[in-house]
């Protein structure tokens, strides 16, 4: 069936990203306006805006299966793109779309279900001879069984939620005495977050690298991979910086891991774009971790080195087109790095710092791509994630990509909220990042501060504080910021005051 109109069941930068490709393919798009973000930038990219801003339900519309289906019908959209997060990996939602004769732009409900349930996914991987960290064969019911299995595979072990993701419901256990408490809290957390308290256990690989393979499969059974991404720079399992390719793989290992990734995708009859995640230990042994059945935040780095538009491929595959690419057609060119610039305070342990973006200036150099859903005046709201923009930088090799990234980071000027920029400016100069020896433990173990600054920078800040004090208190032409009201004004509007000095 031909896709004529796509409802975007998402918001922010990914909604903008999907609509960009849809426009290129001359497909109409529908975006949903919500009460939380009635002036959001993604609404401007849509051909039709469905106004749902009167809806005051506590659960966001992007998570409400029945409402999304109803909106698709009302706006006569014959396809839904779920983006990432929200309903992207909900097998029931994918099935509901099919039942209502709406094309779900993603894999089949069966593939989502099998890969979404970690226990089933492990069983499939095992049956296909995919290397895995030793672990429990099924779910573990109580802490006594957990101890028995942990002793068999050897500590440290990691407890994971069977329906989990994103680091929730995960606990690392280093000795049997810790098991009872860790098991209980993980189970409780899994129940709260995923409505499913079941857990499984596997061997915990110390200090691995996170390597994932981008997969593309069509509905005729063809599956290829588009190379790997390295996402080892993470904090609490939240990725911060991703790059493609990885400096830890050579062509031989790339082929071996890529073939395995294709094999596991074929085993579940996977169609659409997907990601097979592996852990790579220091001896270059790799272990299957999980498969993500959605387009991922970090997909642009793959697009840059392969020249393939992944959203376009998703749309074509969903319209039953056959993949026109063979594995031999896939050539990796150059290097790409993505920094996730979030509204977070790195000096307060990456605590979200929501608020209004007063100004946003991103570099426009030809080696830079920016994917964003905000602009000056936009709000970073507490209801959603804290993403401001993805800064994607390319180079002919890793060295040049890093050099370009360094320059690009200095050209990003965001005012209104604190951002993760200081972290990236430190990271991109760190020896372990430069020589490629960083692992997923980098943030926890290799740095003692999330940012770097010089003594001069602090002195200049001190000079500015003193200058403000002088202007406010000592000069005759003081601009009359009285103490009582000082707290009331919007302090981010410094430039207005400086023009008066």
């Amino acid at each position, binding site marked *: 069936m031909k896709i004529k109109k796509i409802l975007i069941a998402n918001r922010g930068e990914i909604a903008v990203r999907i609509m960009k490709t849809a426009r290129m393919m001359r497909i109409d798009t529908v975006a949903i306006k919500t009460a939380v973000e009635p002036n959001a930038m993604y609404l401007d990219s849509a051909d039709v805006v469905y106004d749902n801003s009167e809806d005051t339900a506590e659960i966001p519309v992007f998570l409400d299966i029945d409402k999304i289906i109803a909106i698709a019908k009302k706006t006569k959209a014959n396809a839904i793109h779920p983006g990432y997060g929200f309903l992207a990996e909900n097998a029931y939602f994918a099935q509901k779309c099919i039942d209502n004769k709406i094309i779900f732009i993603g894999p089949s409900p069966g593939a989502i279900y099998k890969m979404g349930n970690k226990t089933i996914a492990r069983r499939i991987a095992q049956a296909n001879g995919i290397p895995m960290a030793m672990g429990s064969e099924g779910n573990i019911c109580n802490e006594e069984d957990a101890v028995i299995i942990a002793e068999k595979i050897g500590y440290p072990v990691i407890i994971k939620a069977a329906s989990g993701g994103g680091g929730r419901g995960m606990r690392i256990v280093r000795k049997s005495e810790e098991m009872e408490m860790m098991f209980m809290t993980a189970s409780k957390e899994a129940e709260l977050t995923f409505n499913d308290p079941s857990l499984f256990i596997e061997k915990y690989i110390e200090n691995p690298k996170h390597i994932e393979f981008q997969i593309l499969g069509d509905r005729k059974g063809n599956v290829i991979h588009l190379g790997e991404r390295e996402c080892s720079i993470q904090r*609490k399992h939240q990725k911060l910086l991703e790059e493609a390719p990885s400096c830890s793989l050579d062509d031989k290992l790339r082929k071996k891991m890529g073939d395995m990734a294709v094999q596991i995708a074929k085993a579940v009859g996977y169609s659409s774009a997907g990601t097979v995640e592996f852990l790579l230990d220091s001896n270059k042994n790799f272990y299957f971790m999980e498969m993500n059945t959605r387009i991922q935040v970090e997909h642009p780095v793959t697009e840059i080195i392969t020249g393939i538009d992944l959203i376009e491929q998703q749309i074509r595959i969903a319209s039953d087109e056959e993949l026109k690419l063979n594995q031999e057609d896939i050539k990796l060119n150059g290097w790409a790095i993505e920094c996730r610039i979030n509204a977070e305070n790195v000096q307060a342990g*990456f605590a979200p710092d929501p608020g209004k973006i007063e100004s946003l200036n991103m570099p426009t150099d030809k080696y830079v791509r920016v994917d964003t859903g905000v602009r000056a005046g936009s709000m970073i709201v507490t209801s959603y994630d804290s993403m401001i923009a993805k800064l994607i930088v390319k180079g002919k090799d890793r060295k040049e990509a890093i050099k370009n990234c360094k320059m690009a980071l200095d050209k990003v000027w965001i005012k209104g909220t604190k951002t993760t920029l200081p972290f990236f400016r430190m990271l991109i100069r760190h020896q372990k990042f430069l020589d490629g020896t960083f692992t997923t433990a980098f943030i926890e173990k290799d740095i003692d501060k999330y940012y770097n600054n010089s003594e001069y920078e602090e002195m200049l800040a001190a000079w500015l504080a003193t200058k403000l004090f002088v202007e406010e208190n000592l000069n005759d032409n003081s601009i009359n910021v009285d103490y009582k009201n000082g707290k009331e004004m919007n302090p981010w509007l410094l430039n207005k005051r400086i023009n008066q000095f």
Partner: protein
Amino acid sequence: MVNDNLKNKKLIALSSENRKFSFSLPLKHTIRIGKREYDVKLKADEKYGTYILWKNRKYPVEIVRSRQNKYEILFNDISYTFTVETPFSLKRKEVLESKRGKTEKEYIRAPMPGKIIDILVREGSEVLRGEAVVILEAMKMRNDILSPVSGTIVKISARPNTNVMKDDLLVEIKI
């Protein structure tokens, strides 16, 4: 370091880590490093907002908070907090602080609206600076709320699995 002019007309910016930066008055638009004076220019334009020009490089600057003589400055996206003191007020402050001794309290408040997931301390327990005391879930993230000081927990107002608003009191610590 800064030219610490011995005329008593000067101001001292005291950082939250008790580092002192002295500036003589009238405040000059230069800073001395070693034997050289470097120009500091505070500028603003429509597109980028406010910035400091220093050694041919532009650094974005912003005031995040200002209250009486206390300023939180964002310089190149890194935050610094100073109180600006005269030599006299600094001396008074130091005397007061030494007299007050260790009876000061620190109030930890919710930095953003969210849900309390866990409380990691008990009333009466000791915490170290930088230790997590509460886990707050907001914006799809679990955020460790860290203690800014070392001390003893005297009161816990937060309750697990309850929602809190920004600036709600979570924990009281006696320093």
